[in-house]
């Protein structure tokens, strides 16, 4: 199955969403303001912007890992918390977040254990997922025995075990080298085309966003907001030739200019980025 399979039913919808954080000093920081965004089923959407534009917060709002200060987040036709409880999405973080004490297949099986699925169906599904990310030979390996790219493939397999409608990816290849990253990009596109899933992909990399996406959502910081949405009309399937085409470079330039015009008032702001980190760390408690 190739080409755009985009339909008009919104699978994720954010309406008038704001997100405020209370700083330790007592001040309030607006991380996101006036976010309106509809994602169509089967779409591949990237969120791109400078550090501190709130793109990760936006992703976490969709996943109900944090809650909006105002506005409504609808996922798969239901409120975001319900969608989380129904396991309507899978999540991939920047770090693979594999459990050291579980083998590859046990890590992929984890979500299915949480629903108490019947064993044979479970094992079949795990095998299918490892087939999908092309790691069936590594089922009994521990994470430490895999390379960074392989670990991230395991994390993707784990995120897909539920056959979720949506895959949320938070800078999943940020820590990988350029060569591995390009291979992983093609891998993700292949999986996206095979499964027909909707992907929301946070990234720092303009080429990555353009290569992967049907639409690139460009954001700016202070306060975080959407400045432009760029439709990427590159033909599919995309491969090495795509990266070398004139249209590809034109799209990259377009996104880069959108980012630059969004900078507007002064330099980008890292304080939100540090808050997002602090918030993630705060969960340890």
């Amino acid at each position, binding site marked *: 199955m190739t080409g755009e399979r985009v339909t008009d039913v919104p699978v994720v919808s954010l309406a008038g969403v704001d997100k405020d954080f209370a700083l330790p000093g007592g001040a309030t920081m607006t991380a996101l303001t006036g976010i309106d965004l509809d994602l169509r089923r089967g779409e591949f959407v990237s969120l791109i912007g400078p550090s501190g534009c709130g793109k990760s917060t936006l992703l976490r709002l969709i*996943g109900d*890992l944090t809650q909006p200060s105002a506005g409504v987040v609808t996922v798969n036709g239901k409120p975001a918390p319900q969608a*989380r*409880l*129904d*396991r309507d*999405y*899978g*999540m991939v*973080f920047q*770090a693979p*977040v594999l*459990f*050291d*004490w*579980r083998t590859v297949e046990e890590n992929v099986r*984890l*979500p299915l*254990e*949480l629903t108490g699925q019947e064993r044979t169906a479970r094992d079949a599904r795990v095998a299918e997922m490892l087939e999908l990310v092309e790691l069936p030979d590594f089922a009994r390996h*521990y*994470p*430490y025995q895999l390379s960074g790219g392989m670990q991230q493939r395991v994390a993707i397999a784990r995120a897909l075990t539920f056959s979720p409608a949506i895959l*949320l990816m938070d800078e999943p290849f940020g820590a990988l080298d350029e060569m591995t990253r390009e291979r992983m990009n093609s891998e993700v596109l292949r999986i996206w085309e095979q499964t027909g899933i909707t992907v929301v992909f946070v990234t720092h990399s303009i080429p990555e966003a353009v290569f992967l996406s049907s639409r690139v959502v460009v954001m700016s910081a202070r306060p975080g907001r959407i400045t432009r949405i760029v439709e990427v009309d590159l033909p599919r399937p995309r491969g090495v030739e795509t990266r070398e085409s004139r249209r590809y470079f034109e799209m990259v330039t377009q996104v880069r200019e959108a980012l630059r015009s969004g900078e507007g008032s002064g330099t980008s702001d890292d304080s939100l980025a540090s808050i997002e980190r602090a918030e*993630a*760390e*705060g*969960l*340890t*408690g």
Partner: protein
Amino acid sequence: MKRAFAILRHNAPAIIVLVGGIALWEAVIRGLAIRAFILPAPSSIARALGENWTTGYQILPAAQATLQEAGGGLIAGALLGLAVAFAVARYPSARDIVLPVGIAVNAIPIVAFAPLANQWFGSQSVYSKMAISAALVFFPIMINVLRGLTSVNASSLELMRSYAGSEMAVLTKVRIPNALPFFLTGLKIGTTLSLIGAVVGEYFGGLNVALGRVVVESASTLSFEVTWAAIAVVSAVGIVMYLAVLAAERVLIPWHPSVRGERVA
């Protein structure tokens, strides 16, 4: 076969030191005959061990008794430490109180309580020795397990939340596996401490058939080969208990860096 050879080669310096050390000891004692009275040659210690294995000072039954005291104390202390750690990990506010107090109490030389345990539970009873062992073992286990249960990767918790995992699932799938290496570390410390507790308890009185008593009494009658033989047996018991935990680590946490053969230090 090749692997065995590699292991042998890696450990060759250590083996040479052991064999060389014992040989040197024997040679010095025999050659110079100084202090042989207090520090006998390895051969005469070995002879004394053989002669007193079941008769005379009865080293074998004494070792069994001491092992029983230390083992009982280790199990009791570990169970208590686990119970408190789980209870405290459940309530973050309790953790804020228990950790500083635990650290302070851990700075107390607990062996000072040994005579008291003998007074409470009877100096002839194994329970008085087990109580001291348990008190010594409790803190390292409790503090290590508490650290293990609470020092969980933030992203792992977020991952579980994204799967709508229950509190129970977070406990069984994340916190407990995360705490297992910490528990085993505490247990490694605990094996030695449990033996120290038992032997110190025996120093302050107890049945004669116990290693601590054999050490004290043979020294008082100047039978130093027996004293050294008993010390060797205590050491062997300590090393065997420690190796048992190491073996458990290999089975339970094969993925952990300390087991993967990376540098221990």
